[in-house]
């Protein structure tokens, strides 16, 4: 499940030997090795004055951040030549478990403070204190044309309609649960997906009449999905915290990446995707 530790080579001397292994592991795992060539040495100077930012920075981010963090990863690599950003997107809880199991990760961006606290503990100190960099809220996503004639949250209680929600164990599912509690409704889901992108996919394919996803996912879904806002969504505004992990193999680059996410440039990317960064 975790190719990351094998996919990184820490010193240039090992690179040639490692590349064969990297190739093999990447073929076998088919994940996590998509970003560019092997990393340079951790101390290689950048060309644009960023003297100590280099090497590879490994970022685990919630599935809802797929588009924005991919863009920010490219921006980071452009700003710091010689660096490589390795991104892994999945449900926040799955990522948290991988980090707890020892995945060598520099930066973790979760879709909820609760999931973040699984990694940082209840009372982190110093650098290990996560900061909220964006807020998101739920929206109803329906396939283009709205075949189920969904107009509001109450439609998600109709057994006749096909409904996809996130499993309550992942942040989008927890947010959905609080929205339904706030509205006094009992949803009638047909499937509880592992992360928000899986819900979005089922909507895009038209396999469900409606799904509860983040507003940012509706925007990411493009023409295939339509978003329907509902008043109760304010009951569960989710916060996305980010942190440089205490065991980060490359803390300097990790700090720089977090700084980029929180910079004006980062905020522009995030708000264009539908995040609330105010």
């Amino acid at each position, binding site marked *: 499940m975790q190719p990351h530790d094998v996919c990184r080579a820490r010193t240039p001397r090992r690179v040639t030997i490692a590349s064969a292994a990297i190739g093999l592991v990447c073929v076998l795992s*088919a994940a996590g090795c998509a970003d560019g060539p092997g990393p340079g040495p951790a101390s290689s100077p950048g060309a644009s004055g960023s003297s100590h930012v280099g090497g590879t920075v490994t970022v685990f981010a919630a599935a809802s951040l797929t588009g924005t963090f991919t863009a920010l990863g490219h921006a980071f690599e452009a700003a710091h030549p010689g660096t490589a950003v390795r991104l892994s997107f999945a*449900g926040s*809880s*799955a990522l948290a*478990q991988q980090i707890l199991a020892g995945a060598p990760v520099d930066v973790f961006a979760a879709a909820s403070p609760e999931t973040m606290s699984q990694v940082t503990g209840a009372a982190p100190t110093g650098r290990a204190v996560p900061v909220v960099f964006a807020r998101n809220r739920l929206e109803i996503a329906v396939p283009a044309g709205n075949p189920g004639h969904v107009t509001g949250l109450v439609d998600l209680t109709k057994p006749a309609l*096909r409904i*996809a929600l996130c*499993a309550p*164990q*992942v942040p989008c599912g927890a947010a959905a649960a609080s929205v339904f509690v706030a509205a006094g409704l009992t949803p009638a*889901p*047909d*499937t*509880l*997906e*592992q992360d928000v992108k899986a819900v979005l996919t*089922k909507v895009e*394919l*038209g*396999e*469900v009449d409606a799904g509860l996803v983040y507003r940012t996912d509706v925007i990411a879904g493009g023409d295939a999905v339509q978003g329907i806002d509902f008043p109760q969504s304010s009951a569960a505004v989710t916060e996305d915290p980010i942190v440089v992990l205490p065991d980060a193999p490359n803390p300097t680059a990790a700090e720089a990446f977090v700084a980029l996410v929180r910079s004006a440039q980062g905020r522009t990317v995030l708000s264009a995707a539908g995040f609330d960064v105010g």
Partner: protein
Amino acid sequence: MMVPALLGLAFLVLPVVAVLLRTPWSALPHQLARPEVLESLRLSLVSAVLATAICLLLGVPLAWVLARSELRGRGLVRALVTVPLVLPPVVGGVALLLLLGRRGVLGQYLDAWFGISLPFSTAAVVIAEAFVAMPFLVISVEGALRAADRRYDDAAATLGASRWLTFHRVTLPLVAPGVAAGAALSFARALGEFGATITFAGNFPGVTRTMPLSVYLALETDPEAAIVLSVVLLVVSVLVLATLRGRWLSGVPR
């Protein structure tokens, strides 16, 4: 030869040993008594049995055609049969969705004409499992058919038995061990199915959440429960393997 062989064995066995070492045995009865675990186990067993039945019903004739008929292009058919074997299960799930989903190539007509919508139903679980498991049965039965002595069939035919009578009174009993081995393999594969199921059938307790899906979901929040569920799956799989013991493993009668 011995060293790599031992390494190979260790590679296959040690992960399982790790699960057993980390199993919270004292918590086992409590975890096993949880209604959602029993529900998940029941759903897994029922859908795997049904999937195996489909594999037998469709797979045995397919194996017979591959082994005994003079059909042209049998090599191509055999290659096609093994496609689900090499296809990543998630891709299989996407393929099933695109064929049988509500807007799928066939699924749209099922929905429009009969009001049948397969995704997110237990039927979808069975279909996904049969899709990934059937190649095991076909390959196993075809091997047995090729190894069986055709002269018994010829003898039956010269004594006036029809093709069907020959098949089910002579051929099938001869290859019964191969069929049983194939069925057991298919059952085990169906029981462990994850990727195609979660993609095509979704994940809902009591309807589509089989044991592997429960393990995956439990791993997100309750690793102890995930380990217990894994042990249960492990035990069932080992039981299936135990029934495969001896002559069944070879696929030919002694």
